[in-house]
């Protein structure tokens, strides 16, 4: 999968890298069981500090997106392994500021939910415009 990192962005590099990989999994461009480059290799290719990549990989592992295989290194976890019962609460928390901003900016409820549906469908359909 192609990963694109924007160095001018306000979003930290490790967050960009993480969300790109998660989007890759959601859109099916990264398949379960597919290996990811080693921390070192990823840092070399991106030209960034290894600590940054380490941080991303630690987050991915803790949140169940990846598993460490003894011989093959970092791999995308199975979709079964990614499931998490308490995720609904976290999702709600992440949505709160977005909903608040939407209300302030005058985005209607219907518009808001339509947008959510569209983004969700696009992602599942293999399209993600990062």
């Amino acid at each position, binding site marked *: 999968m*192609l990963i*694109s990192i924007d160095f001018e962005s306000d979003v930290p590099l490790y967050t960009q890298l993480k969300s790109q990989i998660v989007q890759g999994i959601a859109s099916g461009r990264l398949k379960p069981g597919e290996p990811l480059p080693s921390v070192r290799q990823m840092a070399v*290719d991106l030209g960034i500090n290894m600590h940054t990549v380490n941080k991303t990989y630690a987050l991915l592992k803790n949140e169940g997106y990846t598993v460490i295989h003894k011989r093959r290194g970092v791999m995308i976890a199975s979709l079964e392994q990614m499931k998490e019962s308490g995720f609904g609460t976290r999702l709600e928390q992440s949505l709160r500021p977005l909903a608040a901003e939407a209300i302030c900016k005058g985005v209607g409820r219907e518009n808001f939910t339509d947008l959510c549906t569209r983004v969700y469908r696009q992602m599942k359909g293999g399209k993600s415009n990062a």
Partner: protein
Amino acid sequence: MHDWMLKLLTFLPSWGVVFLLGLFMPRLVREDILFGVRIPQDRLKSPSAAGLRGLYTRCYLAFSIPVSVFMAWHIFDTENIFWFSLGFFFLLLGQGVLYIWIHKKARRLKESEKWLEGKIQSTVVETSFRKNAGPVSGWWYLIPLVIVFANMAFSIWNYASLGSMLPVHFNAAGEADRWVDKSFLNVFLLCLTQIVLTAMMFFVHWMIGASKQELNPADPEASVARVIRFRRTWSVYLLFLNIFLLLLTSYFHWKALGFIRTSSSLSIGLTTAWMVLLFGSLLYLVFALGQGGSRLRIGSGADTGRVNRDDDRFWKWGMFYYNPDDPAMFVEKRFGIGWTNNFANPKANLMLVFLILAIVALTLIVPK
């Protein structure tokens, strides 16, 4: 076979490669590099960029043609190699000075015309790159190793039967004109040379695999394909080069030791064929591939409008890469074909020093 013909055969190809590479290098580099400066690829065809290329070509021809004539004159004129070498030195020096001058102009041009304004700068990587884009398997280097050790075993086997003097230099007629005492070092010097040569080739092979994947965000898919082809082709070429060179040097070694007796015309023929093959294939690959596969016709020529991260500040004169925050040991050259060090990486620098020491040590112990 006259001596000047032999000289011409030795020097013409190397002069040709240096001259042609210098002349055409601005057109062989990556599609988003202008004289070592990172630019949006659509600016490469702009009138101001074309103007710089024109200026480079005119200045290049203005100094390199007189220097080349001077060199040609001295190759026919005298037996002395000094003036020819001096010409070579000035040819390279002139290329360097001219390049740096134009590089600075390109930098100012990018600045004053605000080429990066409104462009999204990004770095793109392919996660499955190493799986597909590595060089050929390192196991292929068993072939050169077998040749080296066969050569060594053969020399050991026949050591006792050698005469007390060994020929080390042959004149144009193929008769030995310089001899050294038989010694263990002199007999096995070639084996040693071959080992160092193979080690160097394997190092470059490994370097190709270890170097940073550099993709063009303007058309990432096509860029992946180009870079893969570029790396594969050079690593296969390197392996063949290694094998051919070992076979050729083994032939001369065996001939010097008297294991095989062949006519001198065969030796000259082999050398000529080798020269033509080496420089011909080298030039062909350089022009067919370009740096990073930039000359390969792959993809639809799409342009997402995205540009590579502006990394000019890490490149001194667009020639030397120094970036302490980058864990990469090796990156693609900006104005040239091949790879170069990240000079902020001590490990990479150490390897370069070792490589240079190995070459120097080898030239010192070879009997003159």
